[in-house]
């Protein structure tokens, strides 16, 4: 059971046409170490803050180009917090002027169901476990990339990076992973994740095409962490087949990821199922 609260300060989007993104409350507002009863000040900004601001810029630019645009980001804040914190969350969103369309309050166990029933196109969290659980259940999910220096993350351009090691691998290569010790469940998880990534990639491709090559508020990228350049090429082709021509591409072929990711500065990384790879965790 969830309780869905519409945000009166934000113009409601057409949820059927929009890119519905659910963001965990703990990502938007830093969870408090000590719960102070009756506290009213706004909650502190969390890791997803610059993402929220960047999304706003994209929506504004889309509406400037076409005031009737329906392919907009539509954010649902997903909270598992106790009831006494609900109003504080809503007030904090208002305080920061965040473009949150709806607030969804539910129990942790019911989160996945809420995501599924609300046609969520992407669920975002800084917690890799939450992301992988969602992916396993067929809910498209991505990791909010934790910047070691939050001031470096830009707020005027949304940067979405797709991980390409699985997208670019052929069926035989994925079968080969069985020899490396992956279970059937995990392999099935990759297939499911690939399907979810596809949906989101198609939407990002469509949105990216609304803007020109230069000066776009949305920037897309591809990164392969350990695969060969041919897998990277295959991933580029696959994404293109889904309608997404990425702006940036990186083939690391085993080089350490953190230094590169800290330069690429994505807001979100769409993992293709290999969510437990070190270097992609929220605290890297």
């Amino acid at each position, binding site marked *: 059971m969830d309780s869905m609260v519409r945000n009166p300060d934000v113009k409601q989007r057409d949820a059927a046409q929009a890119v519905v993104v659910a963001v965990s409350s703990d990502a938007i507002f830093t969870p408090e170490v000590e719960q102070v009863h009756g506290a009213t000040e706004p909650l502190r900004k969390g890791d997803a803050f610059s993402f929220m601001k960047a999304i706003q810029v994209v929506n504004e630019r889309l509406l400037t180009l076409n005031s009737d645009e329906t392919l907009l980001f539509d954010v649902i804040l997903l909270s598992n917090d106790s009831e006494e914190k609900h109003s504080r969350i809503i007030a904090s969103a208002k305080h920061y002027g965040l473009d949150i369309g709806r607030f969804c309050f539910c129990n942790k166990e019911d989160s996945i169901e809420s995501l599924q029933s609300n046609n969520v196109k992407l669920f975002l969290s800084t917690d890799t476990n939450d992301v992988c659980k969602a992916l396993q259940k067929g809910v498209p999910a991505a990791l909010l990339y934790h910047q070691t220096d939050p001031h470096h993350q830009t707020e005027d351009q949304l940067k979405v990076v797709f991980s390409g090691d699985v997208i670019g691998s052929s069926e035989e290569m994925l079968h080969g*992973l069985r020899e*490396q010790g992956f279970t059937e469940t995990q392999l099935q998880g990759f297939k499911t994740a690939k399907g979810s990534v596809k949906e989101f990639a198609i939407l990002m491709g469509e949105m990216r095409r609304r803007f*020109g*090559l*230069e000066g776009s508020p949305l*920037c897309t*990228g*591809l990164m392969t962490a*350990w695969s*060969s*350049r*041919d897998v*990277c*090429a295959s991933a*580029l*082709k696959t994404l293109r087949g889904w309608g997404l*021509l*990425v*702006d*940036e*591409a*990186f*083939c*690391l*072929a*085993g*080089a*350490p990821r953190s*230094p*590169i990711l*800290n*330069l690429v500065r994505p807001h979100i990384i769409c993992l293709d199922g*290999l969510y*437990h*790879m*070190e270097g992609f965790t929220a605290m890297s």
Partner: protein
Amino acid sequence: KELRSERDSLTGTQRPKPQNAITIAVSSRVLFNMDKEQQIYEQKGMEEYLKYQIEHETEPFGPGPAFPFVKALEAVNTRLRELYPESEELFDVVLMTNNHAHVGLRLINTINHHRLFIERFCMTGGNSPIGYLKAYHTNLYLSADPMKVREALEEGIAAATMFNPPEKRTEVSETQLRVAFDGDAVLFSDESERIYKAHGLDKFFEHEKAHENTLLDHGPLKGFLESLGKLQKKFYAKGQRMDCPIRTYLVTARSAASSGTRALKTLRSWGLDTDEALFLAGAPKGPMLEKIRPHIFFDDQMFHVEGAAELGTVAAHVPYGVAQKRPQKKLAVENAKDSSAAAK
């Protein structure tokens, strides 16, 4: 000491540590010939340029000025792997381009076509690649864009600008890498050149003789010579001094009789040497280079770069020091010192 590399916990593939390798970053325009496409970009803009690239995706580019150099690096790697199969002390060539990822497929197709061993690349979609150079522990950066080269030098990274290869190109070896360096403002600092520019040749010779025993300061490419020397020693250790697939040359306008001593003493004190030292006493470098046939020649003066090209040598410009026409920020010679002093 070589750092042990981690096995990727997921796939079991060996993860080479960039610090162990000698990383050479090349831009797309120096690795391949993209003249036609560059023209389209300059005349018709980004959209037309990318459209053209995608339409011609399956047509490989021809070789660019750095191509023979990169091929020779691979030849050295092959020999190193034979002698030291477990070692990561190899050349690692990275494609570092601010080109758009739309060009990615054509670039990868071209790499495949020419059978190049380039596994890593960064296509930054218009953003500066300079930060990535540091992230990859780049030892040498080659680009067609002098501004990026200058930026890299300012960050303490050895870098040089490359131009269209000479019409009449001297044939170079496919089995032995040959690298030639100018001395002042390339291997050494530009301090002596300052004297020459301010006070003329006689004063320069006087000054050099008087300071014969004073070491010159480091120049931007000292670290790269050092890396080459390190690999050479690996061949010597296996008794392959005569057959070493790396050969280095100092080609300087200094004269053996007077100013050359200071240069040699400085190199020796750094524990470095070049296989050959050619003191031209001011004579043009072109003819000598034609005999040497290096894959690349580094000089800080465009006059010498152009002179070399006229006679068929691929030369790269190091925009450092007093010889440059444009005023520069104080260059990070201190950084260069630190980065080459740190265990590589």
